[in-house]
């Protein structure tokens, strides 16, 4: 009875699958369905370039997906065939797709797009659901076969739970090997992609802290996994084995409390020293550094340099207007020479102190290559002082990439554009820096002055003076 039901079910599944494996229904087409629809309506003037691009995309993504899709071999084969034929013969493909699209739906006008989206979507859903059902059916069949096998073994008195148990133990050892191989691979490949020397002074300290921690943790990781999975294998259920009643060992407990304690204390001390070095900057060093102010907002950064007077003008968020989007209070004369920069440019080997502000949301000022991160919190100013040790040129040489740039990006969820809130950071030589500074514009532009003189009473003489003074 069961067998019949199974057969019925299977044949049903197979039938549907065959029906769906025809080109007109396969997933490949659903990706390019839009282009096909367009094709239909503009039969004569189909844009061949578009088609080429679409097909290329199709193939690329196909390859990527199929490379990873190991489970549905049948489907992959079918699709590959389609793709190959599509690639080989463009002309025939055109007609094929035209034919098939006319097959499945009569002329559908362009404003029928929603319907096609729905029908596409439905087809995709149905296809994947059937795929899953088939795989599950296969799994269920294997399960059933195995259960029957087990039952016959039990009936013959040949069943051994021990054997079944040992399979799991063996699998654990196989996993251990794969795990260790995986760890090695990830360090070798991904580790190489991700870890490169920091381009700042304190960054080198952070890096040595990082390397020490990595070495320690990797040793523990590998050792513990060997023990954990090894013990599982060695001490798997055996017929005449009795576990050893070993409830505790205080000496061992003390050892493996004290050793981690010592290791961790050293890490803590090491970390604290570096932490203090980064954040406990002496007053004079604070003042002698180059000051740069960065204002984060949704979804960009504005950069302010203090200009020749070396001081920032006050900022009052209440004065924010479309023209004065920074909110600078130009009543404060120190603001008149503040420079607006489009990139962050700093000279190498000189300490620079960033004042980090936010206009609206918590953002984060993050420069990975510098090992610099500090939140931009509205209502307070945060600071981070560091000294770059590598120019952009040097970095480009090192990375063997003539277009490499240090980048600052936002690292605190701030809304829709969080993933694209960046600022280029360029490290240059001292002379390049001075040159660049001279080229920067002020915040206090003419428009700003107009707006300001409308709002406030500026002593016209004063403004003239500062106007001439700033032309350096």
């Amino acid at each position, binding site marked *: 009875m069961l067998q019949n039901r199974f057969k019925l079910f299977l044949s049903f599944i197979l039938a549907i699958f065959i029906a769906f494996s025809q080109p007109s229904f396969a997933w490949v087409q659903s*990706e390019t369905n839009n282009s096909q629809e367009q094709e239909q309506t503009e039969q004569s003037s189909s844009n061949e370039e578009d088609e080429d691009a679409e097909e290329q995309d199709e193939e690329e993504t196909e390859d990527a997906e199929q490379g990873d899709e190991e489970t549905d071999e049948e489907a992959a084969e079918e699709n590959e065939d389609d793709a190959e034929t599509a690639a080989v013969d463009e002309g025939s493909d055109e007609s094929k797709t035209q034919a098939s699209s006319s097959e499945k739906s009569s002329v559908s006008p362009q404003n029928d797009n929603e319907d096609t989206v729905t029908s596409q979507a439905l087809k995709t859903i149905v296809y994947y659901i059937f795929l899953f059902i088939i795989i599950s059916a296969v799994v269920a069949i294997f399960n059933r076969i195995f259960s029957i096998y087990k039952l016959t073994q039990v009936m013959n008195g040949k069943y051994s739970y021990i054997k079944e148990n040992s399979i799991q133990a063996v699998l654990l050892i196989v996993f251990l090997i794969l795990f260790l191989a995986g760890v090695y691979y990830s360090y070798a490949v*991904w580790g190489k992609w991700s870890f490169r020397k920091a381009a700042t002074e304190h960054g080198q300290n952070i890096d040595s802290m990082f390397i020490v921690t990595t070495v320690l943790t990797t040793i523990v990781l590998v050792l513990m996994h060997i023990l954990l999975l090894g013990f599982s294998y060695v*001490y798997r259920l055996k017929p005449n084995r009795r*576990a050893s009643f070993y409830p505790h060992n205080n000496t061992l407990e003390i050892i493996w409390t004290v050793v981690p304690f010592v290791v961790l204390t050293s890490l803590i001390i090491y970390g604290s020293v570096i932490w203090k070095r980064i954040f406990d900057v002496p007053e004079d060093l604070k003042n002698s550094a180059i000051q740069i102010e960065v204002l984060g907002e949704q979804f960009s950064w504005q950069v302010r340099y203090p200009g020749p007077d070396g001081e920032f003008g006050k900022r009052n968020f209440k004065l924010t207007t479309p023209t004065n989007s920074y909110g600078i209070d130009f009543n404060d004369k120190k603001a008149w020479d503040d420079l607006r920069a489009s990139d962050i440019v700093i000279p190498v080997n000189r300490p620079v102190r960033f004042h980090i502000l936010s206009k609206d*949301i918590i953002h984060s000022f993050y420069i990975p290559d510098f090992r610099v991160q500090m*939140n931009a919190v509205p209502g307070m100013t945060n600071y981070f002082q560091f000294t770059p040790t590598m120019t952009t040129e040097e970095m480009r040489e090192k990375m063997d990439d003539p277009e490499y740039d240090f980048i600052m990006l936002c690292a605190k969820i701030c809304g829709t554009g969080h993933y694209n809130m960046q600022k280029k950071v360029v490290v240059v030589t001292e002379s390049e820096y001075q040159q660049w500074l001279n080229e920067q514009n002020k915040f206090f532009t003419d428009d700003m002055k107009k707006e300001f003189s409308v709002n406030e009473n500026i002593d016209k003489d004063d403004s003239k003076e500062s106007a001439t003074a700033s032309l350096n």
Partner: protein
Amino acid sequence: MSSTAITPEASFQDSHEEKQSFIKKYVFSTDHKMIAKQFLITAIIMAFFALLLSILFRIQLAWPDKDFPVLEFFLGKWAEGGRIKPDFYLALVTIHGTIMVFFVLTAGLSGTFSNLLIPLQIGARDMAAPFVNMLSYWFFLGSCVVMTASFFVESGPAAAGWTVYPPLSAVPTAISGSGLGTTMWLLSIFMFIISQILGGVNYISTILNMRTKGMDLWKMPLTIWSLFITAIVGLVSFPVLVSAVVLLFFDRSAGTSFYLSDLVIGGEILPNEGGSPILYEHLFWFLGHPEVYIAILPAFGIVSEVLSINSRKPIFGYHAMVYSLMAIAVLSVIVWGHHMFVTGMNPFLGGVFMLTTLIIAIPSAVKAFNYTATLWRGNIRFTPAMLFAIGMVSFFISGGLTGLFTGNATIDIQIHDTYFIVAHFHFVMGSASMFGMLAAVYHWYPKLYGRMLDNQLGYIHFWLTFIGAYLVFFPMHFMGIDGVPRRYYAFTEFPFMEKWVSVNILITWAAVIAGLAQIAFVWNFFYSMRNGKKASKNPWRATTLEWTTEVKHIHGNWEGEIPTVYRWPYDYSKPGHPDDFIPQTVPHSETMSSNLLQDFHDNEEAIKIQKEWNKENNRVESES
């Protein structure tokens, strides 16, 4: 006036009638076992929902430039043109995190297993306050409903991350989910906190007051210890989230300035002044950090139990395990600042929190070593529960070790809010704690439903999930080291991120396959309820009290008197005893040939009797 005399039976009459209506028995049940099932099934449903959300955003990450008409079909305006919108992407990650951390790993783990195991393992008829217990479930269900309903709101669900930091969450114009969606999030979490406090109060009181005769604190199984300590931590820390949420609610709805100051959003200058988002962060993380320990502590207890039973050995270092649980709990309330190393708080605080955070690694390490030692010289039986327990230890080792990076303030400068952090917490919570929960489900399913789960499906479930989870989360560490921040909609805007897109594809496929593997679990779970092999009273041959109850559930758990407990719960493979386990209810007088002098603690009389017996029978007490 005289009072009406009360007969004991009369007082029970109204709460435990002979024949209970369907509503009373299944829906508004006050029986702890039924409540446990309710928690579990609700949590499984929510887990699937959150899993689905994660697959959606993984699709976006792996194929950022591709259109998926399917998505538009289901999500409508949130996936116009077949691509998930950035706003909705952030809503997905927010709700995924919220559901997984709160509803699945807190309510689903400690809610379910505290309710099931506490009365059964300590020998009580039911919880201290069964009615309050029932309320705890219904508040939880209510919070699930509200959270799910937030998806059907015009402006979308909360989208400021599961941490819901203001000002992003406080100003509706900052992101669309911060409108009604966030209000619903706050309401849902408020109900959830009430649920947890009502439950926790019950758990603590029951454990302290309603243990059966002979059940001293030091005879309780580690599961109970962990659930006990979890409840205490919850009681102390959840109310703080209430204050964080209440203040945020008023900032949003009324315009107060607790957290807000100096805001110009969308060109609009907001009137709030004087507040600080850092205040919110402190209040939130005062709960937030203990919360994640609340997620893992029950898993610790469960794994101790499962490892011990299936190795047929006592858990190594029972007392040390209890002390480390306590140490972790105490330390967990003083480390919250490590989430705020780069917020600009006083650097001195950074040093303090780094100290406490790295110290917490010590009891955690002790536990990992003890687990491994439990396996040594055992006789291991690989039930699916056992595999999940071993998997939990593996994930905890991997994830816990990366905690040494994240807890170190200097390294955190580099990896904060990057994929490294995502990898870290997904290992310790999303994998270790989840595997603890799955181990518990596989292990106690016979107790919940009186039937056995299918082993083959269990193996398939384990291996696919175990390998899948490693493939999903291990590569993320390296992304984080490279500086790829979290909660990023796409990696397409930065040249340095482009090499990780191919890795994203690997991760997504692994996630999809691991996600599909959960269907094996769900099928197994629901199918075996009716069609699984009928369970015996003590299928795992365990020593603890819950296996002395009948398979069929009855109110009051034991017909007749509750059994008395004589020994600790880990008498497995005791030399001199024919069986490889001795239930807790067997008095020492019946096991003279295997008693150890230390079993009697300081009972002089008993030690004397044992010594005499040993002499008479030429028994030399050996301790392995």
